[in-house]
């Protein structure tokens, strides 16, 4: 069964450093998402992406975040200057269609630890 993959599984970085989290969505999906879950808190939506454009973003997704589809298979989340509060599990997801009821398929997550 096709699945979303994410690398790395765990990333440790120093505060102020840039990190790039990578995702490979399901191959025939065209809509991509990032969510995050701070330890002990809810899974929160960050951004959705289609056709090389952001289609929706949350207030969390400020200027230090960016997303990109650098090639036909990868989807990345960049955090330019990490803060302690960016420590979280980051989930990538993809879907065939983009409407509120379509199923989003999630990857296993990248645990980001900012020291």
């Amino acid at each position, binding site marked *: 069964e096709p699945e979303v993959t994410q690398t790395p599984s765990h990333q440790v970085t120093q505060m102020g450093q840039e990190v790039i989290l990578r995702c490979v969505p399901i191959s025939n999906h065209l809509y991509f998402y990032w969510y995050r879950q701070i330890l002990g808190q809810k*899974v929160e939506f960050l951004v959705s992406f289609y056709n090389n454009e952001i289609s929706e973003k949350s207030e969390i997704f400020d200027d230090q975040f960016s997303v990109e589809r650098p090639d036909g298979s990868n989807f990345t989340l960049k955090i330019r200057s990490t803060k302690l509060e960016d420590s979280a599990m980051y989930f990538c997801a993809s879907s065939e269609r*983009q409407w509120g009821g379509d199923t989003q398929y999630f*990857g296993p997550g990248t645990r980001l630890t900012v020291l």
Partner: protein
Amino acid sequence: AQSVTQPDIHITVSEGASLELRCNYSYGATPYLFWYVQSPGQGLQLLLKYFSGDTLVQGIKGFEAEFKRSQSSFNLRKPSVHWSDAAEYFCAVGHSGTYKYIFGTGTRLKVLA
């Protein structure tokens, strides 16, 4: 604002016992409702979803859920729990005006042998 509440942070049941995990949502129109499960080291796996129609939906792994509009609830049930069901369960809501899901805080299920 939309919200999803999972009142139980932790639930412990014995293997073979029945299970009900609660989910309540706050949204004006009919939402799209989802239950996901996350096993350690795994991604969020879809168990089942509700869009419209029959309010009792069947999912994978023997799970079912019932949408009750009057109670704004979408509780997940399983008649007989297996040790492999130990995981974290998330309820989520979508709707036609947005691409995002809103998640509850999750319920961690422990199964006693």
